[in-house]
């Protein structure tokens, strides 16, 4: 409890990152539900769409907190440029860089959605499909740089998020109708492979010994201070 009050920025960064990832997961699932024409008995279709939009905006706000407190916290050097340009953070360059990459992809998705009526459906959709990639990149960012990855509860949360998004994608690919069979099988295989890759990475990376050192080591020989 003491550590929590001594380092409010650091713990806010960790908590808001976790919450943002949960909100993004809900957003993805609601988006898939909408496009798959999921129509629950007690809920309007427009309500599914409105929830998708509003929770995505909530995720953006929480992401703002996550990024703001990560920058403001003086213990880890990240730097302002690393907010939009990936792989510039001196701290855990690769893993923070993935967060930047996910944020850039999400910014593209948010901005094109804001001007959807002007840019037209096809271009909007092409960019909007990047959301799946952004979610996956955010997952690896979370596991790779998150100080909480080793916690049982945190791994459970990631697993639940992975399971519901994978289930939504596979359900969508299964019910989308005949045609494009090769593409659908390919996308399903890629999704399962990404999940398998994630668990392989967890086992070899964050859950293996000495990760806080190795996560940093790839970029510099000088060890950074370890933060618990």
């Amino acid at each position: 409890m003491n550590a929590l009050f001594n380092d409010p920025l650091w713990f806010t960064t960790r908590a808001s990152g976790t919450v943002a990832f949960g909100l993004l997961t809900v957003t993805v699932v609601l988006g898939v539900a909408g496009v798959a024409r999921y129509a629950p008995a007690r809920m309007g279709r427009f309500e599914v769409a409105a929830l998708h939009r509003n929770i995505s905006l909530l995720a953006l706000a929480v992401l703002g907190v996550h990024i703001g407190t990560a920058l403001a916290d003086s213990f880890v050097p990240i730097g302002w440029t690393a907010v939009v340009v990936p792989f510039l953070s001196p701290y855990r360059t690769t893993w923070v860089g993935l967060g930047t990459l996910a944020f850039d992809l999400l910014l593209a998705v948010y901005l094109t959605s804001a001007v959807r009526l002007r840019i037209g459906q096809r271009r909007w959709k092409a960019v909007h499909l990047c959301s799946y990639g952004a979610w996956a990149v955010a997952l690896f960012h979370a596991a790779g740089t998150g100080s909480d990855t080793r916690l049982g509860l945190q791994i459970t949360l990631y697993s639940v998020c992975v399971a519901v998004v994978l289930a939504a994608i596979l359900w969508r690919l299964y019910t989308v109708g005949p045609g494009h069979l090769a593409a659908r099988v390919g996308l399903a295989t890629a999704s399962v492979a990404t999940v398998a890759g994630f668990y392989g990475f967890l086992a070899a990376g964050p859950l293996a010994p000495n990760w806080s050192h190795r996560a940093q080591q790839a970029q510099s020989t000088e060890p950074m201070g370890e933060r618990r």
Partner: protein
Amino acid sequence: MKRTARRLVIDRIACTGHGLCAELFPEQLALDDWGYPIQSPGPIAGGDTRHAQRAVAACPALAMRLEAARG
């Protein structure tokens, strides 16, 4: 203040039958058996414009727009 009357125009080719519009603007839209909108004719009643705008904005296929009502 006098507002210009508006009418709702549906792009039948772009429409994919998601049906959100009929939930948001039932004053003028109903759904057929396949989920595509059936529109009652005429301009939008003055007080309903906001509802029509919400339906236009919610369309997943961007298949609706508001235009000035003719004559």
